[in-house]
């Protein structure tokens, strides 16, 4: 498994550049807290969508329970940080940040373990039945959370310390994008895609399809758990209603709009679809109608591949020659200077 293929490297460089730009804008107070908040929510959704992409886009398993794993991560890490805040560490310190990372990782691990336990029986189910079983699991978890009064029950788990910030969220986005696109482009990924295309044929070639399904499921849930932890520490609240199957469907929606199996598409769609309701806010109640209408339009006549082709054409015909031209002029200039 190559740790950094050049395509991934480009992804990561792009994200880091975005981060630098955002960070700069933020430091100079050019972004309102509201816009920053929406961007952070969009990034958390991007982690969710990219990770679901591994299960649904690359391995071809419908799962409508992704929000459940987000909930596991959110509650686990929130309980941990809150406990530590009781015994001190309430003032900002490097130790606190380290502990935040630890709690996020524990939350993610808990989510991965739950996914493993759920995945072993349910991933044997095929097609729509898996989707229904995961949906059922999601609803069971919500009911449980509503009834666990230790975790706040229907009031939600409140007073979680505010530890998430742009840097943490960006960092996790980079890590999840890097890991998932590496996985997807490795030998594991190609075997997963074989399972997606035709499970029977893949098995007859000696691919252990259950193993690849579980691998993808567990890895995706790991990142969903991290996203949950980040969200809980951003909102300072973990509430059962945040993690119902409607949230899972929202993530699935971002995945489909962005294009299944496309990591770039997932990130872009997550950001756009998180911002869209906010952008439509001017239309008040009508936005509730405009949003689904746009969705149906996107699904029925997906304009993204067309747009991508247009952009690629403009790049090839107009932008690239100019850049290449300038680059050769510069090269000649400098090589002339060196002579």
């Amino acid at each position, binding site marked *: 498994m190559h740790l950094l293929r050049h395509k991934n490297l480009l992804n990561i460089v792009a994200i880091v550049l975005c981060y630098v730009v955002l960070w700069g804008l933020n430091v100079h107070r050019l972004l309102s807290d509201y816009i920053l908040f929406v961007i952070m929510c969009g990034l958390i959704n991007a982690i969710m969508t990219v990770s679901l992409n591994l299960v649904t886009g690359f391995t071809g398993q419908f799962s409508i329970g992704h929000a459940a794993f987000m909930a596991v991560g959110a509650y686990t890490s929130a309980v941990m940080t809150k406990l530590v805040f009781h015994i001190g560490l309430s003032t900002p310190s490097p130790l606190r940040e380290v502990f935040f990372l630890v709690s996020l990782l524990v939350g993610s691990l808990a989510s991965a373990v739950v996914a493993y336990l759920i995945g072993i029986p349910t991933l044997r*189910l095929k097609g729509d039945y898996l989707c229904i079983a995961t949906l059922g699991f999601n609803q069971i978890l919500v009911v449980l959370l509503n009834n666990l009064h230790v975790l706040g029950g229907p009031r939600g788990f409140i007073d979680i310390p505010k530890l998430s910030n742009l840097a943490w969220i960006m960092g996790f986005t980079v890590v999840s994008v890097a890991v998932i696109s590496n996985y997807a482009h490795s030998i594991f990924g190609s075997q997963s895609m074989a399972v997606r295309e035709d499970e029977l044929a893949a098995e007859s070639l000696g691919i252990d399809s259950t193993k690849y399904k579980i691998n993808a499921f567990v890895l995706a849930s790991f990142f969903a758990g991290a996203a949950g932890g980040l969200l809980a520490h951003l909102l300072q609240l973990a509430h059962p209603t945040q993690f119902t199957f409607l949230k899972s469907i929202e993530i699935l929606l971002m995945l489909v709009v962005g294009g299944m199996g496309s990591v770039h598409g997932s990130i872009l769609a997550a950001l756009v679809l998180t911002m869209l309701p906010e952008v439509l806010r001017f239309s008040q109640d009508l936005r509730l*109608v405009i949003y689904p209408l746009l969705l149906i339009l996107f699904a029925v006549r997906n304009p993204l591949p067309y747009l991508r082709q247009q952009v690629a054409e403009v790049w090839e015909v107009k932008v690239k020659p100019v850049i290449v031209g300038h680059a050769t002029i510069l090269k000649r200039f400098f090589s002339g200077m060196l002579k």
Partner: protein
Amino acid sequence: MEQFLSQFVNGVQIGTIYALIALGYTLVYGIIQLINFAHGDLIMLGAYTAFISVTSFGLPFPAAFVLAMVVCGIANVLIERIAYKPLRDRPRLVALITAVGVSLLLENGGRVVPFIGPTYRRFPEAIAARKYYLTSTVFITNIHILNVAAAASLMLILHYVITNTKIGMAMRATALDREAAKSVGIDTDLVISITFAIGGTLAGAAGVLWAVVYPRLNPYMGLIPGLKAFVAAVFGGIGSIPGAVVGGLIMGLVEVFATVAHSQLAEGVFFIILIGILLLRPTGLLGRPFVGRA
């Protein structure tokens, strides 16, 4: 025992309504393998149609009932033509997401439209409740009887249509193999439209019955019964018509008894039973086993 009996009566009542909705899911799934998420919202549409026709136009209840069925049937056909038909050859997940979009559109559209609006409305008491005592404490109301009778007769009509008529035969053929059905001269597009019309009609009827039992109407009222009926359809084996009826009845009874046992955890019991059944019988109670590629 007496409590058991009266809860049993309630369970059967809710169960028949679930069965009516589940039939719509199962018919559509059986024919185009689409989980029609928007189906639950037809319940809302049916309930509001009846509500408006009774309160604003002063129609008698039976007329409102029929009108709701017709409106929902037409609406379902329109939804299929506009949103699902262009997606026949695309991945099924895309169609699923479109169904979610349609569902959101119906719910939020209802919220925005002035004569539905976001507030709760109370469904008028269409029929005066009359109690018939079976024992000293156990009783059946005429609403119970109406619900079960209406649902059962609709199911019998559906059964007759599917087993004994030409269009029923065409539906079964299309469900079995759409391409083959087309090649022997069946107009599959028409069959699919008719299937949606039947599903919508049943959902409209279920909506009115639901409103009679639970008279609080709001634009999001279809979400939960829709989800439960969907679970019932899967439980019985999605694609199987007797499965939908059996699943609906079982789920209605489970819901009522689980609520008696623990009102908060009842919702979870629903899904635990579902997952249990899926693990034991991966295609539901009466579902056919997978043949070849899933």
